[in-house]
């Protein structure tokens, strides 16, 4: 979300000016899922409407199952994925909360389902605008979790999400900021079906790993105390150990589709922007990073560390980039009520004993409140002794 008048914006060849939702829908259609299921409310985006229209116009061949709730939509993709086909759904806010029981179940069943979350605040009070409370609430569910800064990053992350989900048998969600990304227009390159096939081949799960009358198997067994913990631990091990694979796949994506499509960063997990070894480093995720980068351009003493993947938590990459900072400011659009921002907690845990820096938990942008450059400049100058308190910036 760059809007720096001083710089000339370079628009890569092959770009179209597209709405964020449309960019995701076109990318998903070209990924060619077999079954799409969605429920349109609480609240939805144009993504599933676009996917329904592509199907109606004969441009797509997936089965589009209209569900009667997000809970049902999530359950429908469970059944389809368990039968060995590629699936897709999208939701946000209340819809994600309603899906939550299934979200945990999908990971436990090791189904490679991909969801787009158009991040929005949760009720009450009711809001339809952007923050990250929805996704943060399901961060313990056992999913790969991506956060996009802009449309192109969202496109690339969907390709990565499918590849990793189908390689690891772990579901993946791509988070894009509601309205700020889903309803805004940016230049973006949509990879073609042929380009995608070179990176992400047709999904073909191993025989005997899905529901098939020729090879009967039982899925979703009842696990007694003698087995339950080991099964949960194997999910934790596979998810935590996927960091290197994510980097490897990102490099492969860049090599196969080029950096204009796959994005230019050196890592799939994080992006560090600004002076090396800056004394003050802001940590953030999603579209607000675009605004923070403008502040960094104007203030050479400050850098920003963007988190692109939060599950698995890339603690090594975070430590490497933050160990020289004297002041670490985590700006979050979510809060663990009664404590601080969830990412601030996790950063403090990762950096324990690695840095004497103060780590601040800043809560801003809840329910769609704009985070302006002025506010970010105010945040940079925060100088409180109490770092165990969430600081709200209004």
């Amino acid at each position, binding site marked *: 979300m760059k809007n720096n008048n001083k710089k000339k914006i370079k628009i890569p060849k092959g770009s179209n000016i597209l709405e964020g939702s449309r960019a995701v829908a076109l990318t998903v259609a070209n990924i060619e899922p077999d079954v799409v299921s969605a429920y349109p409310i609480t609240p939805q985006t144009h993504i599933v409407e676009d996917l329904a229209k592509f199907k109606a116009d004969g441009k797509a061949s997936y089965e589009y199952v209209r569900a009667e709730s997000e809970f049902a939509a999530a359950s429908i993709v469970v059944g*389809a994925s368990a039968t060995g086909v590629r699936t897709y759904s999208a939701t946000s806010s209340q819809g994600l909360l309603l899906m939550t029981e299934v979200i945990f179940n999908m990971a436990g069943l090791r189904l490679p389902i991909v969801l787009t979350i158009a991040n929005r605040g949760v009720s009450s009070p009711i809001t339809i605008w952007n923050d990250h409370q929805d996704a943060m609430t399901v961060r313990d569910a056992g999913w790969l979790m991506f956060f996009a800064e802009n449309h192109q990053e969202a496109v690339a992350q969907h390709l990565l999400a499918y590849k990793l989900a189908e390689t690891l048998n772990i579901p993946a969600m791509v988070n894009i900021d509601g309205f700020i990304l889903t309803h805004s227009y940016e230049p973006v390159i949509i990879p073609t079906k042929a380009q995608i096939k070179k990176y992400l081949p047709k999904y073909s799960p191993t025989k005997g790993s899905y529901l098939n009358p020729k090879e009967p198997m039982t*899925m979703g*067994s009842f696990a007694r105390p003698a087995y339950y913990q080991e099964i949960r631990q194997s999910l934790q091990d596979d998810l935590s150990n996927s960091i290197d694979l994510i980097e490897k796949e990102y490099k492969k994506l860049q090599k196969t589709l080029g950096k204009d499509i796959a994005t230019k960063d050196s890592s799939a997990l994080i992006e560090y922007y600004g002076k090396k070894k800056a004394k003050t480093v802001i940590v953030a995720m999603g579209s607000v990073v675009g605004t923070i980068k403008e502040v960094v351009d104007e203030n050479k003493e400050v850098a920003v560390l963007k988190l692109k993947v939060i599950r698995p938590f890339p603690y090594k990459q975070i430590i490497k980039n933050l160990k020289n900072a004297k002041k670490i400011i985590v700006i979050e659009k979510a809060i663990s009520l009664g404590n601080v921002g969830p990412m601030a907690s996790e950063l403090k845990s990762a950096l324990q004993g690695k840095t004497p820096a103060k780590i601040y938990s800043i809560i801003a942008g809840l329910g769609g409140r704009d985070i302006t450059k002025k506010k970010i400049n105010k945040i940079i100058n925060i100088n409180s002794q109490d770092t165990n308190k969430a600081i709200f910036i209004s």
Partner: protein
Amino acid sequence: MTKNTKKQKPILGSGHRACAGCGQMIAAMAVASGMSRDIIIANATGCLEVTTTPYPETAWGVPWIHSLFENAAAVASGIRAALNTKGDKKTKVIAQGGDGGTFDIGFGLVSGMWERGENILYIAYDTEAYSNTGIQASGATPISASTTTTPAGSNSLGSSQVKKDMIAIALAHGLNYVAQSTAGYPSDITNKVKKAISHSGPAYIQILSPCIPGWKIKPDEGLSMGQLAVQTGLYPLLEYENGVLVNKSVLGKNKKPVKDYLEPQGRFAHLFKDKKGKEQIKEIQKLADKNIERYGL
């Protein structure tokens, strides 16, 4: 996941861990007898799931999935959609759940599945309470039954609500095949499953499944309770094709009073203790008589 390595293992084999005399297991065995091998089953959480799939064992010889309590219907829809994309029209999809998963918590998802008109057979094993979790009342609990959440007491005659009419609700969705049976008639169950599978499109079979601890009956009384439920007219055998009642249990002279069905069951024992209870038995007799008139039994 648990793989079945042995070839031609029975659809539902021995080795389950249900209670001795379990009515649901009698019904499930009869259902399995009516199935072909070209099926995929989506099962709700409940006794049938817990007793047949303790990891790493499984009693199922056909592909079987359990996701959650309330979503067997939607999972079945997803399986159907996936089979459609593979061009597989032969494989039949079956969803199974108890009365809690069907009448209560999964109700909206069952309705959504029926609304979509998909070729799925849904089987409800109706034990008339949440049997797996300690006999709490559900929407299927009949009036006056004492459960752990509708206990009989000095101020209570058990459940004050009448049973939800799921058969009527199924018919209102315009299903191709709707049937009711009881574990007292296993061959009736088997025949209905075969018939439901032969229909393409959505089908619903509801089976009264006596629960030994829930109904407080003896392990050898499951079958007879299933039969008495039919013979009193409280739970008739019914079969609808395209909305038309084509088969039913005819009672005639063999009609039994509801007292014969209620008395052996501990969940109705309080009705036999005082005058108030005896008055209530008369009300239950009226419900049976109403059924006899309604269906022409």
